[in-house]
Every structure is written in C-alpha cells, then in structure tokens.
C-alpha cells in the first residue's frame, strides 16, 4: 500500500529541490550582471557590454527554467497539501501573493526589457532594467523565505475554531482529534510580527548570501573555462576578477555573521533541530563542536568523531560552559530524522569553508598578478560550479528535515497536512511526470548552457547579422 503522505513529501522535495537549483544562480548572477552593466554604462567600455550580453543570455536560460519549475510551487500547496493550506492560508498566502505583486512582476517584466530592449531604450533605462531584475529576484526570495520561516518559527497569530469562533491555546491544539482539528486554523493578528518572525531575517540573509556565492562560482567557473580554452581571454579575465573578489566577500559573510547568527537562532528557537544537526544526542554542559563523525541511529550515536569541546556552547550561547539540550530531552515522536540532518548540515559547513579557501586563493593570485598562471586553479574553479548549489540543497535539507515531524513548528504535523481527497496513485502519477520533465529540463539546460558558453561572448549568429 502506497503511503500518500510519503509520496506527497517525495513530490514536494523533488519539485522544490529541483526548482531551488535555479533561483540561487539567478539571484547571484543578476547582481554580478548588474555590476558589469554598471561598469559598462559608466566606463563606456565595449568589453563590459559584451560580457553583460553574454551572461545575460545564460541568465535568460537559467531564469526560464527557474520560472517553469516555480509555477508548480505556487499551486502545489493547494493540490497536494490542502489541509495545510486551510490551516495556514490566513497567514501563509499573503507572502506568496506579495511575492507576485511586489517582486515577480518586477523581475519578469524588466527581464523582458533587459533581454530584448537593449536597442529600444536609452542606456540608462537599460541599466535600470538590470537593477530591477536583480532587485526583483532578491525581493522574491524575501517573501518566499518569510513564508517558509513562518513554518519554522510561527508568530503573530492566534488559533481559532472557525465553526465556533472559539480561540484555542497551543496546548489544547495538540490534544484535539482530527474532526475538530479540521475547523481550526491559524489567524493573523500581527502582520509584521508574522513577517519578521524570529527566523525570517537571518534565514533570508543566509539564503540570499548563499545565492550570491552560487552566482559568483557560476561566473568564475565559466570565465575560467573559457580562459582554459584560450577563448576571449582578456574579456573573461575581467569577469573572473569581478566574480572572485565578489565571491570572497560573500563567502566570508556567509560564515560570519550570517551562518553563525542563523545557528544561534536555531539553538534558541528550535532546540531539537539544533541538537539533531549538531549531533548532540545527550544534554551537555560545554558542548563540543563536531568536526567529523559518522552517525548511527539506533541508538543515536556518533562514530569516529573529531570534536572541539566547549565550542558549540560558546557559539550558541556565548559561554563555553553553557548547557545545550540533547535529543534525549525531547519526546521520541517529536524529534527529526538524525542521520540526514547531521550529514547534510556538516557537509554544508565544510563546503562553506571550501568556498572561502578557493576564493581566498583567487584574491591572493589577483594581488600577485598570477591569476591566469595556474591551469590547475582554473580547472578547480570550473569543477566548483555545482558545489554552492549542492551546499544550498544541503542547507535546505537540514532546515526542512530538521523541522520534521512538524509542517508548522509545534502546531501541525506533516502527517495531518496532505490533501486527503487526492489518492496515492494520482500523486505517484504526478511524481513520475515531474521526474521525467525535470530530468529533461536539466539535461537540455546543461546542453544549451554549454553550447552558449563554448561560443563565448564574441559569437554572433551568422543569420542574425543578415537580419
């Protein structure tokens, strides 16, 4: 017998995970393109215009697939998570609508102008369109993260039985049976309180900065690739330098303050998630940071671990002796999966360190004027293109699996949230359909990106010259 909840989760994870490959590149690349367009506009150098066009083309491809895969997200709450939608709609729908009204319209409309209007509007207006695309994409992320953060640390609401009008406390909510539960929903009482819930700002900075890193590695990797092929070396050196300097700054910011502050927030607001991702299975004073370990689950235990004592307590609460609650403190049915959260979180952190290292080496080489001397370094840059995207996925897995078994933290369980009128067979059908589409899209996207990249920024289609 197929489990409809599990299938629903698989579909959601697959479609969001796939979608989440593209916005990080779009957001990061949009800002880098904006920097390039600004240089092109102010310095009136043809080189930057060419680079702007070249990366704009790649942006168009990535953005197109991002839009296509994002359409599903706007509706999937309704199609697959109807009970969830009814429970949170009073709060959760607003940021999604706000994304459309304030951000997505802006981004999509000005992208049309940016990609097709270079010769139709003044240089200033065209530059402005590149700013609006970047700004819109970044604002889009804000509203999405707000919605998601409310699931993590909900505030600004009351619980109400819509049939009787009775207001219900959090404690009674969890004791209600399903029939009554159906009529209970979260209602907004404080909009800004819900928007700026305890985790939304820090998660926003953390996520957008991850997107900037993704964009930096994307541009750096492509520049390095073309330089290795000895194609348009002078031109690509410009984008390489820009992306490396930009990349180092954002990689540093990602660890401190953003990563650190996000960690502190999780420690304070979601202690069981914090314990899970850190691998803290028993409560400890002066808890250690685990650098490496292999977690086993029954009983939860870390094998072959390397740790530094006291550091976790210090990072989370500013005191090496602070007590941190371990997994043992929480009811068994309310703890998240331990293996996957620990592994994804730790690999994300390791990648974060790697990004600083790679971009740091790059800046050092720029200073020494030896950036193009080592093909090995350039090759590393090329192969590093997907790594920030993997880090994004890992961070997202740690965040969302770490939230389980709750779909809304301490309010609603994932098991109660699906559309009960959609059969497991139907979900299976759509999973297969989306899996096939996603695989095709990814294959074609990579194929077309590679083709455009191989042509380089100086390529002009022969028949276009005629037209």
């Amino acid at each position: 017998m197929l489990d409809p909840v599990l299938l629903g989760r698989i579909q959601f994870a697959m479609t969001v995970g796939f979608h989440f490959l593209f916005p990080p590149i779009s957001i990061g690349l949009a800002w880098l393109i904006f920097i390039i367009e600004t240089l092109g506009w102010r310095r009136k150098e043809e080189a930057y215009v060419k680079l702007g066009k070249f990366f704009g083309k790649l942006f168009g491809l990535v953005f197109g697939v991002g839009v296509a895969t994002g359409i599903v997200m706007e509706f999937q709450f309704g199609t697959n998570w109807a009970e969830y939608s009814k429970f949170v709609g009073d709060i959760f729908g607003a940021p999604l609508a706000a994304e459309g009204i304030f951000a997505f319209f802006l981004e999509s409309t000005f992208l049309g102008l940016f990609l097709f209007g270079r010769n139709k509007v003044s240089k200033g207006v065209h530059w402005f369109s590149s700013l609006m695309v970047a700004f819109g994409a970044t604002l889009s992320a804000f509203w999405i993260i707000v919605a998601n953060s409310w699931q993590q640390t909900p505030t600004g609401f009351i619980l109400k039985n819509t049939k009787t009008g009775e207001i219900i406390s959090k404690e009674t909510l969890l004791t209600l049976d399903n029939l009554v539960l159906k009529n209970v929903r979260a209602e907004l009482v404080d909009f800004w309180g819900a928007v700026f819930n305890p985790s939304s700002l820090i998660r926003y900075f953390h996520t957008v900065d991850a997107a900037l890193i993704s964009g930096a590695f994307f541009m750096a990797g492509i520049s390095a690739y073309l330089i290795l092929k000895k194609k348009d070396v002078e031109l690509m050196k410009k984008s390489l330098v820009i992306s490396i300097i930009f990349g180092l700054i954002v990689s540093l910011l990602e660890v401190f303050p953003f990563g650190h502050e996000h960690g502190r927030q999780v420690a304070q607001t979601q202690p069981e998630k914090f314990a899970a991702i850190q691998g803290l299975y028993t409560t400890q004073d002066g808890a250690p940071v685990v650098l490496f370990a292999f977690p086993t689950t029954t009983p939860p235990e870390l094998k072959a671990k390397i740790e530094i004592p006291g550091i976790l307590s210090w990072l989370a609460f500013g005191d090496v002796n602070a007590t941190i609650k371990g997994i043992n403190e929480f009811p068994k049915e309310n703890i998240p999966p331990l293996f996957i959260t620990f592994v994804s979180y730790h690999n994300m952190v390791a990648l974060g360190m790697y990004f600083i290292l790679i971009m740091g080496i790059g800046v050092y080489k720029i200073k020494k004027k030896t950036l193009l001397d080592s093909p090995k370094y350039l090759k590393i840059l090329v192969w590093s293109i997907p790594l920030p995207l993997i880090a994004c996925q890992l961070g997202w897995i740690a965040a969302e699996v770490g939230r389980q078994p709750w779909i809304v933290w301490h309010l609603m369980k994932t098991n109660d949230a699906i559309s009960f009128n959609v059969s497991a067979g139907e979900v299976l059908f759509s999973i297969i359909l989306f899996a096939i589409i996603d695989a095709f899209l990814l294959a074609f996207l990579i194929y077309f990106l590679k083709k455009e990249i191989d042509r380089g920024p100086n390529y002009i289609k022969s028949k276009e010259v005629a037209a």
Partner: protein
Amino acid sequence: MIDLNTIWFLLVGVLVIGYAILDGFDLGVGVLHFFAKNDKEKRTNLNAIGPVWDGNEVWLLTGGGALFAAFPAVYATVFSGFYLAFILVLFGLIARAVSFEFRKHSDDDKMKKIWDSAFIFGSFLPGLLYGVAFGNVLHGLPIADNMEYTGNFFALLNPFSLLVGLVGLIMFVMHGAIYMTMKADNEQREKMFSYASKTYYPFVVLYILATIYAFVSLPYLFEKSFSNPLFYILTLVLVISIVYIPIGLKAKKSGLTFIASSVMIAMMLLNSAISLFPRLAPSSIDLENFSLTIYNASSSQNTLMVMLIMALIGMPIVIGYTIYIYRVFKGKVVLGHDGY
C-alpha cells in the same frame, strides 16, 4: 455595504480577467503556431510575445497567491479537487515556458521542431483546460459537507464543461490572432486576419450555445442576473464588442479590434462573476449549504485588510510598468539578434 470579502471577490476577479486577456492572447498565439509555415513566421510569433509572456504568466501566479491568501479554502478544495487536470495544466505551462529559450538556442531544424511542438502543445493544453475548469466551477463541483471534494477526474469531463472548454480555446485563438495582426507584417498579417475571421463565427455560435445550455440546465446562474442593472450594462458592452470584432477585422483596425476582444473577455467573465456571487465554488450536491462562498471560505478580516493595502500599493505600480513595457515593444516585430 461593500465588505472586504466582496472587495476581494472583485480583486481575484480582476486578476483572473487580467490573466485571461494577457495570457489569453499568448496562449492563442501558441496554438496558432501550429499553422506557421516557415521559420520566419515562427520567429515572428515567438518574438511577438517574447518580451511579455513571462509578465503575463505572473498574473496567474499572483492570482494563485491572492486566492490562497484571501480564500484559502477555495484554493485548497478546488486545486486538490482538480488534481490531475491541474497537473496537466502545469505540465503544459512548463513545456511552454522553456520552449522559448530552448528553441532560440537550438541550431538544427529537428530540435527547433521539438520546441515548436512543446510551445504549441503547452499552449493548447492550458488553453483548453482553463475553460473546462471554469465550466466546472459554473456547473458546480461535487463538494460535500465540511468543504470536502468528492469527485474524480472523469467527473470534470461533463458536456457543459467541455463545451465551455471549447469556447475558451477558440476564444483564445481568435484573441491571439487579433493580437498578431498588430505584430505581424504582410502575408502573415493577412493570414492572421483570416484566422481571426474564421474562428469568429464558431466562437459566437458555441458561446451562445453554452449560454443557452446554462440557462436551461443551470438556472441558478441567472437567479440574480436579471434583477441586477449591472448585468444589462455588461451584456450591452459585451454585445457591442462582439459585434465590432468582424467590423474591425474587415476595416483592418488591429488595435481597436484587439481592444474589443479584450473588453469582450472582461465582460464575459464579469457576467459570470455576477452569476457566481457570492459563491466561489458552488456545490452540485447542495448548493445552499455546501457551496464555498466569499464568507465561509475566506481569510480573516485582518488578513483581507492587510492584503488589500498590499494590492493598493503594489498593483498600480505593476500596471504602470506593464503599460510602459508594452509601449516600448509596441509595433511590428523586427527580427533581430536580441530576440528569439
């Protein structure tokens, strides 16, 4: 007298109408792409909607978000109820969304053909299913007590809904053809005039047929219409715009004809809105007690207010720059190296 729930009924209506007019023409162009005979015609089609289709589709996304925010129970019940149909719409929209960029970057003709097909298919499928879905809403949905949807995919395929689906599809094609008469030149423009004329009469006949069908078998839709003065005004404007279309086509007044067909779509939907109000998803099981209305399916007053403020700040800006973009890209398509 006018409460927040009613305002949001109207605002969701505005988003639906905006989407139907805007994405309506580019879905129509997508279906007409099937008849394009050479690469030049195809590229003209793609470039005619290239800079705007993405913005048009945001009307759908925003409409979805607004429905979620203002009437979550409708969003949840209808979308989960239409599950398979909706998945197919999404499938079409995805295929269509990527076909623009992917075609542009394809070199050989075989690959281009694949993306042309994706574009056509991805326009046809939503173009048809939107109407079917809308027909089902008018028809009434199998909603039981406690807002529980009890139908299946095949229940959606009733004759009335299929008829409305057909009306919608032909209407989008006509609307798209009229749009293309503003964008294409010479021979292709003539072809578009002829497509618009050829689809006009079938559209009018089927639309009248659907109206009669509704009048006879779904009388509740007209319960309030005849006592509402607005209904007569809307119908008058509707008739004028429908009558003007062939005149405008004959006189080759592309712009005015396009306005007429846009007004026509708006009036048709507004008339349906009068029929539905205050229901959003009528129940075919028990119309009086089980239907989802703007009251029993809405968000709290607080949320509706917050959302209204958002819409009042945001939508004028959106409409402002949307008009600006359409003006920048006004006029005939010139195939250059920036486009598709």
